[in-house]
């Protein structure tokens, strides 16, 4: 089986009205066998910046540790949090450093930038940035996710409606993928609060 499909994953980030949502599945598997059903794929960099890593789980964990380290250094030097656009550039540079022996991950970055404008982007495993105004997807279920998001997405959704849309898109896509699913994890971030919710999905 391909290296990107070894552990299985599904990630999606969507933009709403002055808010964003980032969601992932919860399965960690070794090819077809399911090992864990509570794997954390999305991590917080700071209150207004989240990112998720799909692909090989070991590379995702290592990359997460490196990025947290770099951001902490930045906080010490600049005495402020990183902007999402800057963070995306940092991730892209770190991935390209390993151009000829890459990390087998695809990151999804979501954050609130200046004036609470939501920012989302995804990258391939060697750092090619893909900015989008509506939604970005990654993982083994990405093709299904593209279809589901494309049909369910609307501009300027409020946080509650955005949560419903992201959840439905995620659950219906992972139900068509053997390697991801077993529940869902959704973060909805507005300028004032972060709401974390766990989805009840099909456990097969």
């Amino acid at each position: 089986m391909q290296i990107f499909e070894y552990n299985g994953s599904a990630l999606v980030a969507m933009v709403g009205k002055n808010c964003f949502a980032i969601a992932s599945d919860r399965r960690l598997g070794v090819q077809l066998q399911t090992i864990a059903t509570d794997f954390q794929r999305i991590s917080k960099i700071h209150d207004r910046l989240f990112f998720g890593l799909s692909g090989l789980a070991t590379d995702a964990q290592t990359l997460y540790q490196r990025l947290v380290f770099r951001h902490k250094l930045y906080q010490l030097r600049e005495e402020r949090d990183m902007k999402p656009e800057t963070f995306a550039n940092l991730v892209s540079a770190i991935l390209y450093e390993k151009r000829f022996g890459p990390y087998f991950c695809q990151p999804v970055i979501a954050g609130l930038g200046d004036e609470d404008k939501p920012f989302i982007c995804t990258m391939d495993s060697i750092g090619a940035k893909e900015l989008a105004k509506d939604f970005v997807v990654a993982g083994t279920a990405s093709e299904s996710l593209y279809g589901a998001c494309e049909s369910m997405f609307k501009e300027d959704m409020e946080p509650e409606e955005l949560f419903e849309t992201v959840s439905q898109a995620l659950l219906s896509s992972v139900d068509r993928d053997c390697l991801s699913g077993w529940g869902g994890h959704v973060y909805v971030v507005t300028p004032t609060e972060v709401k974390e919710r766990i989805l009840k999905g099909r456990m097969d």
Partner: protein
Amino acid sequence: MKLDTSGLESAVPVWGAPSELVDGFSAAPSFEVPNTTDFDGFQKDAIQMVKPAKGTTTLAFIFKEGVMVAADSRASMGGYISSQSVKKIIEINPYMLGTMAGGAADCQFWHRNLGIKCRLHELANKRRISVTGASKLLANILYSYRGMGLSVGTMIAGWDETGPGLYYVDSEGGRLKGMRFSVGSGSPYAYGVLDNGYRYDMSVEEAAELARRSIYHATFRDGASGGVASVYYVGPNGWKKLSGDDVGELHYKYYPVMPSTVEQEMVEVAGA
């Protein structure tokens, strides 16, 4: 019944006596050689390309009251789930069932073919065919196609004059008689639950619940199994479908979500 040996015949024409010098030069014995660099290995690659992985969970066991047969209903193509509602328990005739694992087309076709042969046996011999006989018919057919890329891992379960019968037959030509079998990528997980809970003297309801739980646990751990857990019972009067439960709902029935106890709660302080 004559063994279908057409697959074993050599494609090379027999080298005739070299006395026909009059006919011009006789061509050397030859057959179509595929245009490939790796002649010895390409066929294996081609078979691997069409060989569908046996992504499924099926199981069957004999107990005091008869035979219990159960299966999931997911069809997967690599990582993509192509269907969640495939019938994997095939009704060969009113008192015999076959399970499907491996290539769907192969299983469906050869089970139907087996059903035809069983009916012809009934008409010719004025009595029903035994489970031993039916499984032997299928095993012989599959053996004659050995090496050609068929992918069939089936169990033939039925009730005949000698009582309940269960055989495992596969496309490599194997045929095994037994009391408990599970076939497919989810079979290790199903065996774990089945072997632990099995007793010969169970009632029909207990056996059905054991079969259902085994399939459910396999669908939980195995990525290529899922959908609906179907359970069939084969008794002296033939087979009967007992249940078809969606495994997504079975999970929350076996492991209901408990509201977690709140350890610390923030309370509004009055007048602060």
